[in-house]
């Protein structure tokens, strides 16, 4: 009983909190890596990996054109409200990604016995060890880059890795 009571007055709480903050920072730095890994997996589902920047430019041009057309129409004194309403409608109709739709469907709220997209996922492997392949040449990799955590197999590959994609978090 007394032990418990004294436990209540222990002053360790502030100190542990400080340590925890450091831990959080440390975790965040390693989280960079997991986030990079996730981003990379995401990139595997991309349609146009290399052209994306051009796509954006295209969109800009298109929107510029629209703006110009819009200005012209405005100068001709057409109905302004309907245009705005249309723009709003278009924004509503703009295709959303599957993940957004999934979030919207709110499948977590379904009772546990109902099969859904989320429950059909196969889940983590039973054997957690992963084989490591060198990101430079593809053979079995025994070493890890100390800066970004990417695997490589030899000195030569390490040099190539350092020169090309270290800290770029691509693989």
């Amino acid at each position, binding site marked *: 009983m007394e032990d418990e009571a004294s436990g209540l007055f222990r002053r360790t709480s502030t100190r542990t909190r400080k340590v925890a903050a450091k831990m959080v920072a440390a975790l965040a730095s390693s989280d960079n890596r997991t986030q990079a*890994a996730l981003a*990379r*997996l995401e*990139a*595997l*589902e*991309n*349609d*146009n*990996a*290399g*052209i994306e920047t*051009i*796509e954006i430019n295209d969109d800009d041009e298109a929107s510029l054109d629209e703006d110009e057309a819009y200005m012209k129409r405005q100068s001709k004194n057409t109905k302004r409200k309907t245009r705005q309403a249309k723009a709003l409608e278009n924004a509503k*109709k703009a*295709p*959303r*990604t*599957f*993940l957004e*739709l*999934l979030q*919207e*469907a709110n*499948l977590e709220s379904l009772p546990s*016995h109902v*099969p*859904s*997209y989320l*429950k*059909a*996922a*196969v*889940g*983590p*492997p*039973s054997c*957690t*060890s*992963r*084989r*490591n*392949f060198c*990101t*430079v*040449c*593809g*053979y*079995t990799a025994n070493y890890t880059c100390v800066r970004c955590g990417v695997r490589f197999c*030899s000195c*030569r590959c390490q040099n190539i890795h350092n020169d*090309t*994609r270290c800290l770029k978090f*691509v*693989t």
Partner: protein
Amino acid sequence: MSNVVVLDNGGGLCKAGIGGDRDPSAVVPNCLGRPSSSKKWLVADQLQACEDLTSVSLRRPFDRGYLINPDLEKEIWDRIFRSLLRVDPTASSLLLVEPLFNLPSIQRSTDELVFEDFGFRSLYVADSPSLVHLYEASHRPDGLISRAQCSLVVDCGFSFTHAAPVLQNFTINYAVKRLDLGGKALTNYLKELVSYRSINVMDETFLIDDVKEKLCFVSLNVPRDLQIARRPGKDNLFRCTYVLPDGVEHMKGYVKDLDEAQRYLTLPDEAWFPSQGMKDGCAEVPEKPEDRKRIDLTKNEFNLTNERFLVPEMIFRPADLGMNQAGLAECIVRAVNSCHPHLHPVLYESIILTGGSTLFPRFAQRLEKELRPLVPDDYHVQITTQEDPILGVWRGGSLLASSPDFEAMCVTKSEYEELGSARCRRRFFH
């Protein structure tokens, strides 16, 4: 006499035809593409006919296997129905194949597309595993699949892979397991590897698709094959060269030496004796990728060695890619284990492989090799491959559409108008 349009609307390829036919009359990419040389977006079959497919930018109506952009899909369907099939939607029914666990919002927009934009007379929505089962069961009337009326369909498609048990023509939906890896991710992975190691091909989706289809295969013994892949010169059974199109003489890329590319088939199938494979590998002095430099720079070409089998390898071990998901074999075991124990032996004995990504050579052999240790000793493992895995689902749909009571199973346009989407959907048990 009205006709039924059967449409297997996949994320990669759209298979469309008239119910009752043996083969679909249109198998076209389900996307819009714009080559760098033109300003116009090409739709579906125009893309196939297009000469110059370098740096095509793509727009797909599908994201992660689900239809997210109905407007885009409408353009593609329009092209398919009006120019390729030449049918009148208002006078025909539609059998549409939808992915499993389609979201309600997507179902609603699909219904809108079918009834309001195209005005089909009636609609039947099917899922792919049950259609594959139907086709296989009627294809081999005395086989186990048709006698037991149950099978395990492994559909390894463009966006994802499903292991789905089917019983009495119904997919057992609570037992379905999904692996988020399919042909698209594999192509993108190969793209990434080639771009880093030799030539930047990040924009060349169609080209790398072709490379993947022609050169990739599944390894039966990865450590052994890795050893072989680093041998120099002629001993390296895996090295092969792919020539990029130059835009003058040939517009399509091609494999430089087909015999060279096929050499891996001469390897003995020592799937069951992995130790033997190590023996001949050990004698070799490991040679680093210097040989890559021997590429003829006057031509645009690149060499592939270990990439050829490390890419499909990801389906069996997604963890290697940093994915927190189990491999295909474990996926199958989990799907079976979610079913009633009485079904287990039958399911293991009637595994059907379908989907384009199962076309990699030796896919079935490798799957059996991985599956055997995970399955109890007294059960048989029997993997059936379809003669055309890409069209398997469509053929099942064609069979279903030609059955006499098909019309009775459909939701008609008037029913849809009266009851709305959600009510009508209940009929399909989704």
